[in-house]
């Protein structure tokens, strides 16, 4: 071993400088590591904050529609200011609520849409470039006039109506959303269901290139949902083509989705490509995944807990504290009669 040559004293750093350099170095290490940790945290754990802006819908009907009288509904022009001139006892069809709307930002940045990602905060980001045109919807099965509709044909079935519904997610949170669209019955009427049809089955687009979440089997793709025919024909059951007066954003199920306000949100199947009328109860995705946790009906019911969490209360997005969950999400007056005589604990 050779001993290194002695360092000439001119090259030895004087102690003041050495300590100065060392504290500088240390400050540098502190700054660099904390900045990296902060960057990592921000990259991995950011709340959803995409600016989602779709084109405005044309011809949106904003009538409050506090009446089941079809003539009056078809004639919104004739009515005076609906708030001031409200009839003494309006028939509440459930189409509107006065509750505070959930912000567009929250509505578009907090979504369960596993076709894109299982992270609610990231659906908007991942679905940013999703193109939903051209789009067709096949309506088939037990109908007299099966047809593959082009999206524009569906949009022409009826002018989009604004309906403000509560949306209750099975995870225990809720929103108030101004949807645009029309009752599903209008589409079903157009294909003339046969007498033997008892159920309606729905299917989401399956295209892993456009919906990257489908590359992982979080659910048995494609997503399928179903309703009993009488549920599907109920006026509250809606085919939504927009929200906040704009075309339906990708995270919310562009270009066309189902909204069933008295059921948990996952019943509201998104990006629909197929609707078929069937005689037997169709399979539904979450029920297939966990039959003990998600039933076919999945009506909002504060008395029937999910096996892993309570359904008695909900976090209304934008509010602090939790509020009590209402039976049928507050739509009992309109829909309870669909279930008379049924044990809703067994048929959860």
């Amino acid at each position, binding site marked *: 071993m050779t001993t290194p040559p002695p360092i000439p004293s001119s090259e030895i750093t004087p102690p003041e400088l050495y300590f100065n350099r060392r504290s500088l170095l240390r400050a540098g290490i502190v700054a660099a590591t904390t900045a990296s940790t902060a960057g990592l945290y921000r990259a991995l754990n950011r*709340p959803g904050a995409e600016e989602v802006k779709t084109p405005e819908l044309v011809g949106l009907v904003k009538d409050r529609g506090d009446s089941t009288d079809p003539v009056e509904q078809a004639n919104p022009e004739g009515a005076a200011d609906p708030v001031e001139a409200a009839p003494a006892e309006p028939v509440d069809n459930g189409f509107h609520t006065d509750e505070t709307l959930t912000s567009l930002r929250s509505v578009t940045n907090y979504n369960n849409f596993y076709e894109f990602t299982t992270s609610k905060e990231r659906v908007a980001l991942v679905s940013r470039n999703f193109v939903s045109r051209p789009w067709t919807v096949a309506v088939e099965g037990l109908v007299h006039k099966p047809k593959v509709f082009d999206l524009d044909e569906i949009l022409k079935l009826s002018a989009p109506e604004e309906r403000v519904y509560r949306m209750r997610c099975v995870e225990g949170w809720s929103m108030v959303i101004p949807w645009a669209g029309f009752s599903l019955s209008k589409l079903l009427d157009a294909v003339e269901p046969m007498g033997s049809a008892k159920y309606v089955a729905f299917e989401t687009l399956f295209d892993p290139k456009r919906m990257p979440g489908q590359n992982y089997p979080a659910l048995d793709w494609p997503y399928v949902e179903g309703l009993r025919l009488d549920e599907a024909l109920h006026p509250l059951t809606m085919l939504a083509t927009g929200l906040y007066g704009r075309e339906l954003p990708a995270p919310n199920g562009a270009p066309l989705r189902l909204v069933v306000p008295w059921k948990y949100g996952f019943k509201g199947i998104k990006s629909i490509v197929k609707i078929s009328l069937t005689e037997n109860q169709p399979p539904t995705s979450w029920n297939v995944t966990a039959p003990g946790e998600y039933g076919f009906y999945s009506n909002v019911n504060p008395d029937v807990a999910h096996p892993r969490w309570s359904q008695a209360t909900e976090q209304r*997005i934008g509010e*602090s504290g939790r509020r009590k969950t209402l039976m049928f999400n507050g739509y009992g007056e309109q829909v309870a009669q669909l279930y008379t005589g049924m044990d809703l604990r067994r048929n959860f």
Partner: protein
Amino acid sequence: MTHQNLQFAKFVALLNCAVPGLLLGLDALRGDLGANPVNFAIRTTGMLSLICLVLSLAVTPAARVSGWSQITHFRRMLGVYAFLYAAVHFGIFFGFDRAGSVSSTLSEMSLRPYLAVGAASLLMMAPLAATSTNGMIKRVGGKRWKLLHRLAYPAGLAAVTHYFLLVKSDTRLPMAFGATLVVLLGYRVFALRRKRSVDLNQRGPRIGENNVVQAEPLP
């Protein structure tokens, strides 16, 4: 590493473990936690706690495998952070999600298996955090302290079970944490059994066997 450098490295680690928590607090003050702030804060702190816990359990095997025994100086700090984040996690659940209602917190925790195992995990971490000072190590005594701190493993397994039970269908992350824990635990069990058989045979360590001197008692 000199003592001074080690102290500095510990300080850097201490600071960096706090950074995510500080950012979370800052974002909370700015109202920047997204659509569901309470749930966001609960999930963030839960995740931070689990990461710290797994890292703390990875220290000893990492030190043995790499031979870099000085990293064991960071083990206790990681463990204490795991507890702190879990305590904040529970605090947010109790204070905000349950609006400070003791009865609703207790009833939820007893009705929901995922909350019950989460609570078990937190309860197991509490005595470990409480005995994490040098004074307490002396008072409890090295051997007993070591035994007590093995609780970190069941605490980790309970936390992963808590996580696994609460996800709806995408189990990739909880499974990854679970697999990591199993590997770490497996390594320790394997190393312990080998050591025992070596002791029984009254032999010294075999050539190539790692016998890193522990800087601190093992958990």
